[in-house]
């Protein structure tokens, strides 16, 4: 395997007295996608927020391109520029048009000129078939379009790593597909990603590695085929059975 973009070792995280993540260690090589699955409350969102330094951690080390970003001397704002993140909902800024949403960070964070930022934003929008929405406000877009714009926005800073947290779970099935297609395209272009999802079918398609989180621990991990088709652990089997029965496959 080539060098890891993301490397986590022995990460531990608690809220007050509740231990949420324990002994999390993963490596995410360049151009690969690691997908986290697990029941609600198993700690998927918390893990992604820790990677993006939105949550302080109790212990452990997170490295981005070999550099420890959990070092106290590191400026978290600079780290976050290199990591794109898209949340389940409420991603876009409702008081700004799609274009303004996308150019905000390049202009304010990277110091691009407005023209430069607009050029880049328009080429991104064009690439993902949303150029005609550039001047719309988020409340005029469908949920799927909103999430795709959120993905595009996070790409505008050319991130090394993309974190996607259940980006389809607030969408109805038809809209889910257009968002998933966008993610597949990114994968094909070599973007390195970490995802949390409830869509097992999607996990199968994009994942290089699947990790099953149970009560804040990685209980089982491996290729999509190993985890989703031939899980060894009883709890993984049970989780997949429940997901199957809920008709989510």
């Amino acid at each position, binding site marked *: 395997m080539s060098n890891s973009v993301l490397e986590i070792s022995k990460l531990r995280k608690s809220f007050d007295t509740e231990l949420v993540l324990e002994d999390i260690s993963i490596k995410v090589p360049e151009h690969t996608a690691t997908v986290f699955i697990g029941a609600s409350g198993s700690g998927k969102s918390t893990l992604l927020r820790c990677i993006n330094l939105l949550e302080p951690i109790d212990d452990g080390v997170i490295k981005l391109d070999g550099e420890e970003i959990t070092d106290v001397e590191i400026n978290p704002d600079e780290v976050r520029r290199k990591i794109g993140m898209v949340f389940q909902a*409420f991603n876009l800024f409702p008081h700004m048009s799609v274009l303004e949403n996308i150019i905000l960070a390049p202009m304010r964070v990277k110091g691009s000129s407005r023209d430069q930022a607009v050029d880049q934003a328009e080429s991104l929008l064009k690439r993902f078939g949303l150029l005609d929405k550039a001047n719309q406000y988020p409340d005029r877009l469908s949920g799927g379009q909103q999430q795709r714009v959120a993905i595009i926005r996070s790409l505008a800073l050319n991130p090394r790593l993309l974190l996607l947290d259940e980006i389809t779970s607030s969408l109805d099935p038809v809209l889910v597909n257009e968002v998933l297609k966008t993610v597949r395209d990114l994968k094909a272009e070599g973007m390195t990603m970490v995802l949390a999802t409830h869509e097992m079918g999607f996990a199968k398609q994009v994942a290089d590695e699947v990790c099953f989180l149970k009560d804040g621990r990685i209980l089982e991990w491996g290729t999509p085929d190993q985890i989703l088709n031939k899980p060894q652990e009883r709890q993984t089997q049970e989780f997949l059975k429940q997901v199957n029965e809920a008709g989510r496959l």
Partner: protein
Amino acid sequence: MKNEASRGDSASQFNGENSQSKYDFGGKWQPSELELARRAARAKRNKRSAIIAALSSFFVLGGLAVIAVTSPGWKLLSDTFFKWAYGVEVLPKILLGFITNITLTTIATICVAFFGLSIALVRTSKAPALTPFRILATVYVDVFRGIPMLLVILLVGFGVPALQIQGLTNNVLILGLTAVIITYTAYVAEVIRSGILSIHPSQRAAARSLGLNYVQTMRHVILPQAFRRVTPPLLNDLVALIKDTGLVSILGVTDAVRAAQIASSRSFNYTPYVMAAIVFLLITIPLTRFTDRTLRKSIEQQNAQGLA
């Protein structure tokens, strides 16, 4: 914002007639017989409603007016409160006084906006270095929201000069203004803070995850949305502020209220008070209507966001 036009008009699309061009896909669409009949019925119904409203207003309001004017006390009442000739005579003095109210309002608004925003930012920030200021700000807001403004005016207006500190002003206008600013800063800080807190935490997370720092996140993401939400309550506070500048008259500032008081005590007639009231209403009623409209708009907008 360039695209205001494209977002505010969502309501008008559902008004039937107005929207046909928007849905005129083929360019050859003609309303069906059924639709034409519906429109005719709607027009007829609207006309009938208008007639009913006009008639009922005429009889109810007209009836009340007749009862008032024909009642036995009417003559005394109108001589005491509505002696228009006298009212017009004292109007210039009252207007001159009202300039003071407007000046006080303008200066207070600017200062209150600045201090109120600062205090709201201090109270919502989590920076450890600001902890003492956070405590002070909380105490300040709690205290001055909880006591009658008249007391603050009396305390500042009469209390500060009593200290006889060199360099501190004895000018009642400045002291009164200070008291108004102190009180309203507490109100406005609270309104702005509630606006900041009402923005969904994901907005902050989304901004931070784009690499924006705290100040940039506040300036470009949180505050613009917060201010949009609290514009109606802030406008309400502005109306209240205009009225409350009349309270500094207690210190002897010759504002509209004081001018009316002087005129009325000279003649034992209360028409000057009514005139002063009318002068205030000329400013506050349009502002209140405007506030109402802003509120309706902002509710519509939030509903639209909820739908998406």
